[in-house]
């Protein structure tokens, strides 16, 4: 579905992503993990054409650089971590914008298929009670669900998520990841996401690429990539030991853990 070949991103003399290649097939959820400054978000930006790059990114065999923005948006959609909406648009107005790629222009956005998809997206994300509410009054989690609903209404085949639950509490974190997992169950769909939380990456990712200083250290199925040896080498610490201490304190019957 997605083929990334020799992707390099430079900002001036600085190389942020250095000649990386990977691919993504339908049904896969690819987690891009690695420490800060590894170039994870830059990969996402390159795939969504937000930054210039060298190399090739092919979606279903076609170079994305040769596709129109609207055509590309019909195939892939991006959910970023922060949203600062300038004005008090209603939740419904923001969600409906998701149909732009399928029906652009002033007169667009009135097809029946579009209406059904918008209704489904609203129902799936549970945003029905908020439809007439201004997005300026929403909490961070509700706002992220609004944009997830917009993305579902957009109906792409590839979801690109950049730290989708970075500032969200546990309830919203769970909601967002479960919604995406459910979305992925439909055939012909795939997800690529940048996550900092290694536990979430292990729990939800089918595949992973582990990055360090702009290069891929390991790529493949999640369990093969996120091994103690790989993670310890990249993060320069005993990751598994830390995770076991961190999460071990929540084991059933355990009282107070010690960190």
């Amino acid at each position, binding site marked *: 579905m997605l083929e990334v070949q020799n992707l390099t991103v430079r900002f001036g003399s600085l190389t942020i992503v250095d000649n990386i290649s990977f691919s993504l097939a339908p049904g896969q959820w690819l987690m891009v993990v690695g420490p800060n400054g590894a170039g994870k978000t830059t990969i996402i930006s390159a795939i*969504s*054409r*937000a930054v210039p790059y060298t190399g090739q990114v092919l979606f279903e065999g076609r170079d994305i650089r040769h596709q*129109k*923005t*609207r*055509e*590309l*948006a*019909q195939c892939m*959609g*991006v959910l*970023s971590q922060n*949203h*600062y*909406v*300038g*004005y*008090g*648009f*209603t939740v419904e*107005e*923001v969600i*409906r*914008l*998701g149909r*732009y*790629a399928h029906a*652009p*222009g*002033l007169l*667009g*956005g009135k097809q029946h298929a579009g*209406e059904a998809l*918008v*209704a489904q997206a*609203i129902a799936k994300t549970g945003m029905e009670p908020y439809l007439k509410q201004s997005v300026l009054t929403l909490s961070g989690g509700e706002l992220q669900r609004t*944009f997830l609903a*917009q*993305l579902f209404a*957009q109906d792409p085949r590839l979801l690109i998520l950049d730290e989708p639950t970075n500032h969200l509490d546990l309830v919203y974190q769970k909601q967002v990841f479960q919604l995406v997992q459910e979305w992925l169950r439909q055939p012909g769909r795939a997800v690529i996401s940048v996550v900092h939380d290694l536990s979430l990456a292990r729990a939800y990712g089918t595949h992973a690429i582990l990055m360090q200083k702009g290069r891929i250290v390991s790529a493949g199925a999640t369990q093969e990539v996120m091994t103690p040896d790989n993670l310890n080498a990249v993060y320069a610490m005993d990751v598994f030991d830390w995770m076991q201490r961190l999460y071990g304190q929540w084991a059933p019957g355990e009282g107070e853990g010690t960190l």
Partner: protein
Amino acid sequence: MKKRTEGFGPVEYALFTAVTLAVLLLCICVGSVMLPLKETVAVLWNALTGADNEAYALAANILLPVRLPRVLCVALVGACLSLCGAAMQGLLKNPLADGTTLGVSSGASLGAVLAIAFGFSLPGFPLGGTMVLAISFAFVSLLLILSLAYRLDSSLSTNTIILIGVIFSMFASSISSLVITFAGDKVKTITFWTMGSLQGSSYENALLLLGALTLFGGILLWHARELNAFAVGEDNARSIGVDVRRVKLTVLIAISVLIGVCVSVSGTIGFVGLVTPHMLRSITGPNHRRLLPAALFGGACFLLLSDLLARTLLGPRELPLGVITSFVGSLVFIYIFCKARTR
């Protein structure tokens, strides 16, 4: 789920048209010489149907060659500037963006001052030289200001935009002043013109404004959904499939042309694009499919009433129109700025 139209409905169009016509009529009747409503309507009707206006000779002499073209120009300039302000505020996701605050009007003004001072004109088209330079300078100013602002702060925050706008305005004004210093006998024309006035407007001017508004205002109205996407966020706009670069360029060109045409006809009339969209947003909401048409009517009404004040406040002496709009606009500007800071 209940379906509803996002755009302006026929009832809203009818309501806004009725209010605008009422204000238009009021502005035609009221002035240094008061014209009774009945007489005014009769003169207008006779003029439209080609009938003789002999019975109302005095009213017809004031109304048809002087007041009507002026009032029409005022309404059209108001509509253009207000539409530009609304579009700019959506595009830049910034409620303080406007031709005046961004320095575009000063840029256009500099172009026009140069044209007047150096007698640049197009043969057979009296306003042509001023207009071409005003439009070109408006566009170049907008590009300069935005590229500088992007370079300093890619999120185009309110403070950066305002700061660059103020600096650019001062820069453009200083060059204008320099030109005026050496303008000799044209100083008076230029000075009066920079204060903004539609005194002595002609039907040709009104026709020109109408043409620009139909074409370039139409382009802005056509991009209402794209402006919604920009107002939500540029990254989001790209993600949902908006061709960000093309739309931005198209909208900026349309805005530059409209501001350039307005400046060349009326001089610098500040803050119309800031005040009206802000007021209307509380009625229509931020959706540009409703806000842009409302801005057309709202801008026309706002400038018509400002012009009425300019004509009657110290009557028979006339104040420059720009003085009234800048006075109201600066107060609204402070209000929005404080509100944005406390949010």
